[in-house]
């Protein structure tokens, strides 16, 4: 079964890098540009994992995580947040919103895959 991962980031470069790496590793990827876009797409798609940036227009990552956790189908989905500044505060906020883990930007493809493997059974 192909596993679907949604990536949410307002930066096209980051989205592309995520898509390349994940698709290379055999995952199916759905891209979204911000929280609102992501929630809209989630209505029609069942995903196995979500990777989201924190600082985004319209709806930021923390709020997205909170919203996603509210939708019945996604209560237990692993959510990884991408943090630029590895400030403890942001991490904590993300975690209390329901994030599973984090990756500090910039990161290498191997680091990303390692984290994905760690949370995706």
């Amino acid at each position, binding site marked *: 079964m192909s596993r679907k991962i949604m990536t949410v980031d307002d930066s096209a470069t980051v989205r592309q890098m995520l898509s390349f790496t994940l698709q290379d590793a055999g995952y199916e990827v759905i891209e979204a540009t911000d929280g609102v876009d992501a929630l809209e797409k989630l209505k029609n798609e069942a995903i196995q994992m979500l990777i989201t940036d924190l600082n985004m227009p319209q709806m930021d990552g923390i709020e997205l995580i909170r919203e996603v*956790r509210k939708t019945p189908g996604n209560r*237990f*989905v692993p959510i990884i947040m991408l943090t630029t500044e590895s400030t403890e505060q942001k991490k904590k906020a993300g975690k209390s919103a*329901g994030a*599973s883990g984090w990756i500090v930007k910039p990161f290498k493809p191997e680091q990303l895959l390692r984290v994905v*493997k760690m949370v995706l*059974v």
Partner: protein
Amino acid sequence: MTDRYRETFRDEAGEILCELETALLELEVSPGDGEAIGRVFRALHTIKGSGAMSGFDEVANFTHEVETVYELVRCGRLPVSRDLINLTLGARDRIKTLIESSGGIDDARTREIVAAFRKYLPEEQGDALSISSNCRDITYHIRFCPPADIFLRGINPLALLKELAELGQCRITTHTEAIPALEEIDPELCHLWWDIVLTTTRGMDAIRDVFIFVEEDCELRIEAAGQGEERDRTVVGNRTPDQEPSAPDTVSSVRVRSEKLDSLVDLIGELVTVQARLAQLASARADVELDGVSEVVERLTWELRDQVLNIRMLPIGTTFSRFGRLVRDLGEELGKDVVLSTEGAETELDKTVIERLSDPLVHLIRNCIDHGIEPPAVRQVAGKPPKGRIHLAARHSGAHVMIEVRDDGSGIDLDLVRNRAMAMGLVGAEADLNDKELYGLLFHSGFSTAASVSNVSGRGVGMDVVKRAIDGLCGGIDIFSRPGEGTTFTLKLPLTLAIIDGLLVKISGDFFIFPLSAVEECIELHKTDAEKAHGRNLVTVRGEILPYIRLREQFAIAGKSPEIEQVVLTEADGQRVGFVVDEVVGEHQAVIKALGRMYRDVRGLSGATVLGDGSVALILDLPQLVQIEESLAC
């Protein structure tokens, strides 16, 4: 206090020394086997460590010398040689002596062995031992108690455990104690926690990385244990004191004196009896409520019985591993090259059965090496590999365990057996014996086909001892042999001696029990049929004429036998014999009780059991009954 430690250590060391021996013998067969080297090293290491802790300083110091040399072997700086194996086997025996004796023994031999080991060390010894730690396996004990809401954060502990398992050799124990009852369970919460023993070369950081996302919110403890050590009992020893007392203990085994278990089994026997009486009373009263209670008691009793009997089950492997050394030493003594292979070492058997099985197996293996396996030169001429093989296999088969001792030697020469038997006057010249009966002769006391008497066998003592021991265990023994290809002895043993499946029969008012394993069938015997045989105790079953024994006469039970009696046909000692009883009651699971001191020597009975109504049924010893009858006839 120290005395208790010392005893525990003695017990434990016994097991480890067995393991050490097995590993050494395996290492001898494949000298480059890294796993075997690891096992040898671990065994030495454990003995050294626990020896020092329990006050066996001498053992610890001695073992340290041996370990030092194996340190080099493990790093590939010293090849394994036959000499080294021999020396280490000697050292192993020495450790055993040191542990068993309570001081005051001559230590010249110890010094001698130490000196021999030191010769293996290079000059710059100190240097050699400082091996960088990153090439080394280190064992970590990890306790991972995730927060209950871990799923809600989208983390699946399974993924983490998988990740851990990829780091090295990993043993995971899941603790399920905290799972609430079904009606109270919240499926969205995690009720499990884990103890993990991980042996890896990757170091602490790699392990921490796995838990990076959960580290802060869960209880996680990672401790490095002794290098390469992987016994889970060390989990207990390395527990840090700051641990909360509420966490369930992780002790994986408890040592209990075997007498305690025996008395527990005795009590269960009593309980089963009382329960049977309760059941009988309940059904007689036709009281529904009492019936209900009685049924619950019955269920619990049987469950308890099974559990307790289960406690006494031990894997047969410990016995098997002892034979590796025996085969090697005997082979060397007799100038034969023999290897032992085993299979099914994990098969479990009652402790008492295992203990009493050891001697017969030794006899059989000696026999295989002495009579079965040919000298290397002879084997080569016959087109076989020069190395002889003995295969020990154990497996479950219903309520029995089958143990096979197989060699690929010369097999049994049935003509030779026949001739010997005639020469000894066991059979007449005209006797027409089938293969099975001929094999049966091998178990005759004093029988031997060996041309010469050796240190090992040939005196004709052995097979009859084996037979008797196996009979004593309510078991059976079969021989299958093909000339030139080898011989297979198959032992069939009951799982436990405490309870047998029996056939309950009645003569006048007395009850008796046949071991069900020996019973083949039951037929009716009409008075008229018996009279037709003209007083000879013979009955025709499907064309075969079989002798029978009247138990009423044998036990001198008063009263008249009924018109139609029952013959219980059995197979004892390879021959079929019938036993005449008044009535066959049915199958009965009998909890065996030993007969009292006064009755211990009564022949023909092996024990007794108590029936549901409190009356006693005697358990018949069929081979003995046949013997008594035969000696009367003579």
